[in-house]
């Protein structure tokens, strides 16, 4: 069987398209590359959607945490503390069993127990909490002079926030947010190892890598392939976020634009 046939059979296997049976013996390098790559679709799905949704929630939470009114501030603080202070792994388990209970009471909530929706919700809430902390820190370090200048120009309320405070907050928080995005994508590999089950072996990249390592007793092929894919993914994220960073700072001369520094920090 040529490699092209393998790609045709297994390229979209993680979505349930193509060959039904996973390879069982005589694993070729091509099969491992194709299946693990196919699993990566799920990682990208979880990462992208939760990042996009989480961004808006994070902005709201950051503003909530900075609010003077305790009715807004306290819930935001608690939300951020709960999601940042506990392991994502436990959050997945808890959410899964919570959704199972909900399903037994209200049958129409059944889709929540599938990873594609349930795990996505957990990831959205989780990344929102982490990003909110970043944006809150950035909001707190918006230079006083910027706000005074806005006041001097007669900008108030929403217009002052939209035109002056928010762009600066994004600029200051962006490098840390890039990091957060990278580690969010890494965190998506946990989904199928927590409570959420795979149906018909439709798993993510780590799921297939683990499958091959279990079958071949040889971790030295599938895990490096996985690593290769994730390094590519990380480089793509850095590229996209770097472009946004450049756009956010386009008023600054090139040399003054802040560089994005990578910090290995988050295993959630």
């Amino acid at each position, binding site marked *: 069987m040529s490699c092209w046939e393998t790609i045709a059979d297994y390229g979209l296997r993680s979505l349930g398209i193509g060959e039904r049976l996973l390879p069982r013996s005589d694993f070729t390098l091509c099969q491992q590359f194709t299946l693990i790559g196919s699993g990566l679709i799920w990682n990208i799905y979880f990462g992208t959607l939760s990042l996009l949704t989480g961004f808006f929630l994070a902005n709201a939470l950051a503003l909530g945490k900075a609010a003077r009114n305790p009715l807004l501030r306290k819930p935001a603080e608690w939300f951020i503390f709960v999601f940042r202070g506990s*392991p994502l*792994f436990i959050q997945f388990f808890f959410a899964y*069993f919570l959704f199972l209970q909900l399903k037994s009471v209200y049958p129409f909530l059944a889709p929540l127990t599938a990873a594609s929706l349930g795990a996505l919700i957990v990831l959205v809430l989780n990344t929102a909490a982490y990003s909110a902390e970043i944006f809150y820190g950035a909001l707190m370090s918006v230079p006083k002079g910027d706000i005074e200048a806005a006041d001097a120009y007669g900008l108030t309320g929403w217009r002052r926030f939209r035109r002056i405070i928010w762009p600066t907050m994004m600029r200051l928080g962006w490098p840390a947010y890039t990091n957060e995005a990278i580690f969010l994508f890494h965190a998506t590999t946990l989904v199928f190892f927590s409570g959420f089950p795979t149906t018909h072996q439709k798993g993510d990249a780590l799921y297939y890598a683990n499958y091959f390592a279990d079958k071949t007793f040889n971790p030295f092929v599938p895990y490096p392939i996985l690593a290769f894919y*994730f390094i590519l993914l990380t480089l793509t994220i850095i590229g996209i976020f770097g472009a946004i960073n450049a756009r956010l700072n386009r008023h600054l001369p090139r040399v003054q634009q802040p560089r994005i520094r990578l910090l290995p*920090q988050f*295993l959630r």
Partner: protein
Amino acid sequence: MFSFCSDPSSLEGLAWLSCYLTTGKHIEMYWALGTVLLLLAITAPTALAFGFGGAMAARSRFLPVSLFGRAYIAIVRGVPDIAFFMFFVIALDQLFEVIRHKLKCPDWPQDIWQGNDFVVCPEAKLPLGTAPQWVHETYGFFLAVLTFAIVFGAFAANVLFGAMRAVPRAQVETAEAYGMTQRQAFWRIIVPQMWVYALPGLSNLWMVLIKATPLLFLLGIEDIVYWARELGGAKTARFSDYPHPDWRMWYFLALLIFYLLFTRVSEIVLDRIMRRLTRGQATVAGEAQRKAAA
């Protein structure tokens, strides 16, 4: 546990719960909490040692050593940590068995890798097939600790490497002016001063390490996640004196709260340490402390 627990079906409310929460299995689960703490207690210093070694290697002026140190630091950035966990546990196990195989049975006729099988001679198996259960468990735990130490050592190396470079250059120059050698300057000037720069990163790392402990479950250790799934599952009256529906949600809620408390306590303690370490340092925070005291 308690004397009134002999007939659980006759109990109600709190009495039932107090008996339920002290069954033998639950006591085992509480011991598993101890396993987590033990893992943290062993891993944290080991990882710090790995980190220190990594940072020193990265600083080395001998290029291959420096490259090795930098590669060790860099490699954890691009790849999900959980992949490392799953990789190292198998890889280390195989590495030990291959070494023992080469030493103990040099004239073993077959290949170690036969198609999809990994076969070493029986004497080289780790732990030996005849070993009692606790040896197997301890070996599994040892592998887990080593894996954690390797992964978190790389994180720590990154933090310490940065901290060593953050010590003001003038300090080292002064040491050299006093006639200290490179090595003396490193041990007597840089190492004592770097901790204040390293502590924010290390405390972050400690939080991350706490939150990584449930991953022990993935490494095949009977930890609290294992017990929460085991005990929380629905039990019928036929197999258990304490029948209950699916309570896994509540067990994981309890774990969630356990971790939140743990994080909170760590935060408070680390804050204290930071304040103690900042005292008398030539940093903004140190200066602020001096002014507040004056």
